């Protein structure tokens, strides 16, 4: 398995610009309606926020009051939206992997990527579920001793240990899944578990190189996608869209950073072409001697 490369991730994301646009569009389609609902609920028609803000302990109460009528439908919509988002991410991940391993064009259109991904969608979904289970287990297990009657002197070490293990386990599990995903696209590989284990092995062998795409692309991408939602200043719609577009690019770049380097395709040889000079890879020293 080749080393992850932030630069090649960037280049590949540019080649996959149509995919970036699709990732952005899906994000917009899922979250904009929810935002519109919330904005309608919290807009000036419903809340006339006075100069200087609401009175004592009013913010939370009014927030609860105006969100209450829309809370359940909104929550249902968001849950379904998030499930859809996960399914979509699995699809384009799988598609990108299969296209990269068996390219039919240099700059694939979206339909080609989706076409590559569909046949192996369930295989990648299994990998995602596996990672999810491992993540929950890895994050929860260090806290279990606290449920027992441990001595007080062990509480603080357990807290620190639990926090560290939770963070490390989360990163490790998902990096292994991302790296393993590139193996799962190879023909004949069907075991999500085997792919994840190989991915884990790759992460352990190259911890820093595996972490770099997360730091350069993954985290900024996440921030760019979420930032518009929590930015507490005047935020024009254009800012939202631009931030999300950049975030989508970062996410794609993050994932494709783990793509293996591909050998250059061999030059086609004509059967009529006269044989070239004698070459061998088995005995290179013989050639040098000549």
């Amino acid at each position, binding site marked *: 398995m080749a080393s992850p490369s932030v630069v090649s991730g960037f280049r590949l994301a540019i080649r996959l610009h149509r995919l970036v646009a699709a990732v952005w569009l899906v994000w917009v389609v899922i979250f904009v309606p929810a*935002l519109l609902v*919330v*904005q309608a*609920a*919290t*807009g*000036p028609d*419903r*809340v*006339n*926020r*006075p*100069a200087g803000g*609401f*009175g*004592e*302990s*009013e*913010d*939370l*109460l*009014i*927030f*609860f*009051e*105006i*969100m209450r009528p829309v809370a359940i439908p909104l929550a249902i919509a968001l849950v379904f939206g998030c499930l859809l988002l996960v399914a979509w991410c699995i699809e384009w991940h799988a598609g990108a992997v299969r296209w990269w391993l068996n390219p039919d064009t240099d700059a694939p259109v979206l339909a080609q990527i989706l076409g590559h991904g569909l046949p192996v969608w369930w295989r990648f979904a299994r990998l995602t579920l596996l990672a999810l289970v491992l993540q929950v287990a890895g994050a929860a297990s260090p806290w279990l001793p*606290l449920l027992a*009657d441990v*001595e*007080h002197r062990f*509480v*603080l070490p357990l*807290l620190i240990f639990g926090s560290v293990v939770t963070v490390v386990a989360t990163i490790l599990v998902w990096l292994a899944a991302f790296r393993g995903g590139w193996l799962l696209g190879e023909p004949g590989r069907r075991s999500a578990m085997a792919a994840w284990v190989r991915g884990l092995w790759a992460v352990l062998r190259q911890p820093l190189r595996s972490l770099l795409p997360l730091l350069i692309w993954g985290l900024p991408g996440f921030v760019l996608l979420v930032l518009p*939602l*929590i*930015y*507490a*200043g*005047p*935020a024009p719609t254009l800012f939202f869209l631009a931030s999300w577009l950049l975030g989508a690019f970062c996410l794609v770049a993050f994932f494709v950073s783990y793509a293996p380097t591909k050998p250059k395709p061999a030059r086609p040889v004509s059967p009529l072409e006269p044989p070239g000079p004698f070459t061998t890879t088995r005995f290179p020293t013989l050639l040098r001697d000549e």
Partner: protein
Amino acid sequence: MAGSLWAATAPADVDIVDYEIDVVLDPETHRLEGVEKIRWTNRTDAATDELYFHLYLNAFSGSRTTFMRELQWRSLRNRTEGEGDWGWIQIGRLTLDDGSDLLPVMEFVRPDDDNPDDFTVVRVALPRVVEPGGVVELELEFEAQLPWIIARTGFVGDFHLVGQWFPKLAVFEGERGWNSHQFHASSEFFADFGSYLVRMTIPENWVIGATGIEVRSGMPDAGQRTVTYRAERVHDFAWCTAPPELMEVVETDFEPGRDVPMPWLNRARDLLDLGAADLELPPMRLRLIVPREQKKMVPRMVRAARLSVAWFGLFYGAYPYPQLTIVSPPVGAEEAGGMEYPNFIATGADRLDAYPPFSWSSDIEAVTVHEYGHQYFQGLLASNEFEEAWLDEGVTSYAEISCMTAIAADNLVPEIAAFDFWGSERLSLAFPSLPVTVGKKAWEYRHRWAYFLASYTKMALALRTIEGLIGPEAMARGMRTYFERFRFRHPAGGDLVEVLSETSGWDLGPFFDQAVFGDAVPDWSVLSVRHRRPRPADGFGWDGENWSEVDEDQTTDEAADESWLVNLQLARRGDFIGPVDVELRWSDGTVERRTWDSQTRWVRWRLEGSSRLEQVVVDPDVTWVLETNRADNYWRDQVAAMDHPLWWVREAIRLAGHIFLRFS
């Protein structure tokens, strides 16, 4: 110090029932064997020929008791019950002072629900009538099995919190007869004041804490020792014991010169208009029994206890007992926490509370303040918790939140994160879909959550609303008067209404009728605001003698052009009728306050001003904290630029933080 305060502050007719109990705890079987002597004095104007006893531990005797049915559990704490998990109490002998055996005439009664599987109340027919002023002396033997810890009594491992453990006499109310109720899932207790002398035999090296003060500790004998506690002018007795490997005793004290925060003293002085001498507090002993695993939290527990003593002492009156015992249950015994008995409270802490972010939560302080508050409201003002749970829980919650707000405002516990205590209560009240009635018997609420919401939250908010209406000074004086007038008595809800009305000069009856005894919902709104310019004069005018046509050109002046007529309509959307302030803010900076009595469903105010009405706020000071629909209380002329169209995200994050701090 011990004893002197008791005698000095209690009226002579306080003592109604005195107990002398010898009890032995078997730590293996968690069983109690006791001999109890009772001396009851009939201090009413009516005679009686019967007695009623509470046998509270029988509430845990099986899955069909009233308590367990109301709890909707089929086992204790959802455990797979094994032998010894259930609890019960049985009277083995019951004799009158003349030697007559009362056991054959003892019968179980179910005054509340006729549940044949409930055995928590017994009636004993006396062979003679007890006239007013008469005395009955009884002696009985009992055996009790402690349950796996539930409802703040029982055992977990070697930890024992022994509450409601002995046959306890109900309250005789003269012509109204005996006031006794079965043990319900959502109720606490009601009993008369008296003195207790209790000799507890426990394993020789175990620690012990109890109501009252320790007056004697016997020499160890056969691995056991007998500890004697004495308590006067109390209406219950609880105790806790555990091995020293598990629990540790921390002896400390409350020293007013050291522990009363100066801002609180000044505030009490201002609000109550009392001199320093009137606010002087006596020192008292604090005895903490804490699990060794919680040792790190002891300084915080001690500080919380001292602040509690200071707050209630300053604002309500001095604590009249020499000692307070505080028990923090160990892991697994959390069900024992959050309970009050006279001179004895069970708080609660978790090992994680010592470390951020858990340490940011104010749980340790809030629970301590609340349970200590019960030393006043129910401990000293012994209201009927069965019938008026809101009278002690609501008043205590009000005092607790006021105290916690002051602790946070004065930064007396720097560890805790900023938390809006009143806002949290208002948020809780905003949840239910149906209006909440406070004034019900404890077991008559729709469900357990409704009981908590009504008795604790809504009642506390009702008192906070009263404070806003009558002012903090009148409220502080009223509450102090209520305490001073009814300590060592059994006040009822009407007494609180009467005292607050008397001290404030307000007739608070209608308020209580709507907020407490009814389910009226306060909800006001700005219905509409319309601006228009005054129309130029037109038609005919009366010049004193004749009608003459108005000359438009002559009557239109510049002042009229610049003035505005405003038609403001306010609505009372809820059914709660009460006075509410309205703030009118004009664009020239003028701010005007008016009060609407809201007797009608809506009101129209026609206003005229030289500038536009810029903003209207109904109840701008948030006096009516009971009102939870507040979005329509605000109106602005120019739609204000919100901080951000997505301010809800910030609020959602705050809400999540709020929930974490509240429930962590």
